[in-house]
C-alpha cells in the first residue's frame, strides 16, 4: 500500500462533500448511498426511484472516469468469499435498519448535527474498529 499523503484524501473528501452539498441545495435530499441504493432497486417501498438510479449511475461513471484518468484501480480486497457475503448482508440489512451509512449519517448527518446521526456514526465506527482489531490481532488475521 502506498504511504500516507493527506492531499488525496482531503481532495476526495471535498468532492464527496460538494456532491452532498449540491444534492441538498438542488434536490433537497440527503446524499445517503444506502437509501439511494435501496430506492434505485425498488427496495425502499414504492417503484424504483429515478433519482437513486441517476445517482448510482453517476457514482459508477465518476469512479470509472477517475480510475481511467486520475488514479489507477489498485484495490486490495483480502476478505474471503464467505466474509464478502456475510459482510454484504450485514451492511445491507444494518444500513436499512439503522436508516443510513457513512454518507447519510456520517457526511450529511454530522454536517447538520443530527443527534441520531452522531449516535449512529460513533456506533458503527466503534463496532467496525473493534471488529478489525479482533479479526487482525486476536483471531489470527483476516
Amino acid at each position, binding site marked *: 500500500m502506498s504511504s500516507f499523503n493527506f492531499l488525496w484524501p482531503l481532495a476526495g473528501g471535498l468532492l464527496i462533500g460538494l456532491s452532498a452539498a449540491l444534492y441538498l441545495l438542488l434536490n433537497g435530499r440527503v446524499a445517503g448511498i444506502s437509501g439511494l441504493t435501496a430506492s434505485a432497486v425498488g427496495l425502499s417501498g414504492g417503484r424504483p426511484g429515478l433519482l437513486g438510479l441517476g445517482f448510482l449511475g453517476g457514482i459508477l461513471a465518476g469512479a470509472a472516469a477517475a480510475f481511467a484518468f486520475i488514479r489507477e484501480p489498485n484495490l486490495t480486497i483480502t*476478505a474471503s468469499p464467505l466474509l464478502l457475503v456475510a459482510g454484504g448482508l450485514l451492511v445491507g440489512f444494518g444500513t436499512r435498519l439503522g436508516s443510513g451509512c457513512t454518507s447519510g449519517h456520517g457526511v450529511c448527518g454530522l454536517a447538520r448535527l443530527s443527534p441520531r446521526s452522531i*449516535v449512529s456514526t460513533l456506533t458503527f465506527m466503534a463496532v467496525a474498529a473493534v471488529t478489525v482489531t479482533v479479526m487482525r490481532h486476536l483471531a489470527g488475521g483476516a
Partner: protein
Amino acid sequence: MVPRLLASILSGLLFGAGLVISDMVNPARVLAFLDVTGAWDPSLAFVMGGALIPSSIAYAIKRNRTRPVFDTTFHVPTSRVIDRPLVGGAILFGLGWGLVGLCPGPAIASLATGRWEAVLFTAAMLAGMAAYRMATSRGSARAQAS
C-alpha cells in the same frame, strides 16, 4: 424531473470521483483506518473532515431557504429519537464494514473495476436490503391484521 435527474447524476459523478481520488474505494485503506491498534492510516479522517466542509456550509445555507432549486420542499429527516433500530442497525453495519472494509458508496464505486469481489459483496448487500424490506413488510402486514 429532468433537472432533478441531471442534478442526481452530477452529484453521483462527484461522489464516485471523490471515492476513487480519496482511495476510500480501496478496502485495505479503510481497514487500515479502522485498525487503530495496528499501523494506523488516518486517510478516512481527512476524507470525512474534507467532506464536512462543503456539506456543513450547504446545511447552513439550507436554514435560510424554504425550498431547494429543483423541488418544492426539502426532504431531510427531522426525527431526533435515539431508538433500538438506529443503534442495532449501526452495530450490524459496523460489523459488516469491519469484516470487509466496504460500505455502500465504495461498494457501488468498486463495481467500476469489474472485480468479482466487488460484485459478490454488492449482490450480498442488495440481498441484505431485500431481507430488511421483507421483514418490515411482513411486520407491518401483521400489525395491520391485528
